[in-house]
């Protein structure tokens, strides 16, 4: 079966490649052929100047993440014929949210730097805590809590599709935060609280907008969003609440508790405080012009507020019971 491909080319060192362009290729695809195999056959037989990263060809090295018809996938685990049948075209581009270096190759330095920032290694207590004579046993349940996070092959697919990273380059990103949870959630970890403090700073766990893209596009089922949510609740449990993210969550909980619904107009003040809210006035005016400004309710409290409060009481009771049970 003949398949036409369009591949985004870019090479800043040549005259023709300085401006990105799409180049058309055509290959004879056989049943079961992957996109990576197509790329390799193009590089071998048609155009050796085409550059892309690849290594293992079996979705374990994480080198070949590219955008296939607009969505980030591993080239080695995507078959070309079914993909072509869906879109009737085959457009290959480098992953997003990364600087393109050449053709399908992107700069991974920021990715590794962010990973370094979360200190991707276990920090056990420096000296053996008193009374501990044996090694720490990890129960099946303990392992399950972090298992998803250690499947990461660092292909960058999640960061490529991350909406928060698109508007804030400093955001740590789903890949690094999933790695952070792998250690914060480890029962042998000692520096968890310190880590959570750092992760709650600007451009940390609270930058995530929960669009679920990272979960959807991860080729290994890492679920970075699950990791981020676990980090968030762990941070609040640890009492790390002096940041916009935690304040926002608390304000939301309290608003529903108090009036039975989300009083959006009051959220800005509760999250940012009065002074900082004043700085948001120009932004608020813009929102008003676009009809996006939430207006305060005249009578915010709903009629059946008692029902809402019953739910809160029930949650409180359950949490109390959970705490009483011995761990493990």
């Amino acid at each position, binding site marked *: 079966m003949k398949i036409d491909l369009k591949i985004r080319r870019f*090479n800043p*060192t040549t005259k023709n490649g300085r401006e990105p362009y799409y180049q058309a290729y055509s290959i004879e695809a056989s049943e079961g052929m992957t996109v990576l195999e197509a790329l390799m056959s193009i590089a071998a037989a048609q155009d050796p*100047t085409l*550059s892309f990263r690849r290594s293992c060809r079996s979705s374990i090295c994480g080198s070949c993440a590219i955008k296939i018809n607009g969505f980030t996938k591993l080239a080695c685990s995507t078959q070309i014929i079914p993909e072509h049948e869906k879109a009737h075209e085959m457009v290959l581009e480098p992953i997003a949210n990364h600087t393109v*270096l*050449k053709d399908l190759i992107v700069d991974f330095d920021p990715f590794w730097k962010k990973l370094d920032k979360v200190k991707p290694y276990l920090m056990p207590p420096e000296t053996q805590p008193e009374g501990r004579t044996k090694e720490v046993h990890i129960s099946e349940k303990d392992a399950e809590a972090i298992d998803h996070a250690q499947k990461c092959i660092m292909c960058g697919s999640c960061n490529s599709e991350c909406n928060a990273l698109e508007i804030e380059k400093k955001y740590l990103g789903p890949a690094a935060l999933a790695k952070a949870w792998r250690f914060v959630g480890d029962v042998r970890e000692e520096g968890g609280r310190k880590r959570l403090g750092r992760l709650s700073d600007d451009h940390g766990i609270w930058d995530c907008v929960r669009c679920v893209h990272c979960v959807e596009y991860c080729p290994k089922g890492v679920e970075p969003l699950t990791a981020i949510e676990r980090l968030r609740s762990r941070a609040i449990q640890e009492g790390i609440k002096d940041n916009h993210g935690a304040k926002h969550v608390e304000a939301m909980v309290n608003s529903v508790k108090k009036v039975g619904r989300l009083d959006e107009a009051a959220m800005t003040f509760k999250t940012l405080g009065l002074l900082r809210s004043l700085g948001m006035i120009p932004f608020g005016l813009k929102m008003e012009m676009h009809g996006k400004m939430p207006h305060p309710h005249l009578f915010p409290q709903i009629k059946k507020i008692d029902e809402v409060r019953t739910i809160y009481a029930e949650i409180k009771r359950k949490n109390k019971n959970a705490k009483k049970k011995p761990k493990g």
Partner: protein
Amino acid sequence: MVKHCSVFRDKTELEQGVAKMAELRQRFKKVVLKDRTDYYNTELPSVLELGNMLDIAYSTLIGALAREESRGAHTRTDFPKRNDEKWMQHTLVTKKDDTFSLSYKDVSFTKYEPTERKY
């Protein structure tokens, strides 16, 4: 290599393989790069790898041709028996000025002596 130097080998296949590989190595001397840039040139490493692979393949072939016995995954259909007396040694291949030479080194074993496989 799959045809001439698989698990089951014999003299004629191996000799043909050596001749073919020698020819390929000659052809490799005329190799050219189509990608002449020096920025993320992914053709260059693949060509360097090809040259090394040809050298390794040639070494494997001449080593297998010289070893007239069967041992593990090296099964000579013309010499089906294992011969510890003569071949209990490592094959060493040395490349110097584009010629390959074979030499041998004794196997040192400590606690467990290698024995013939009985299954």
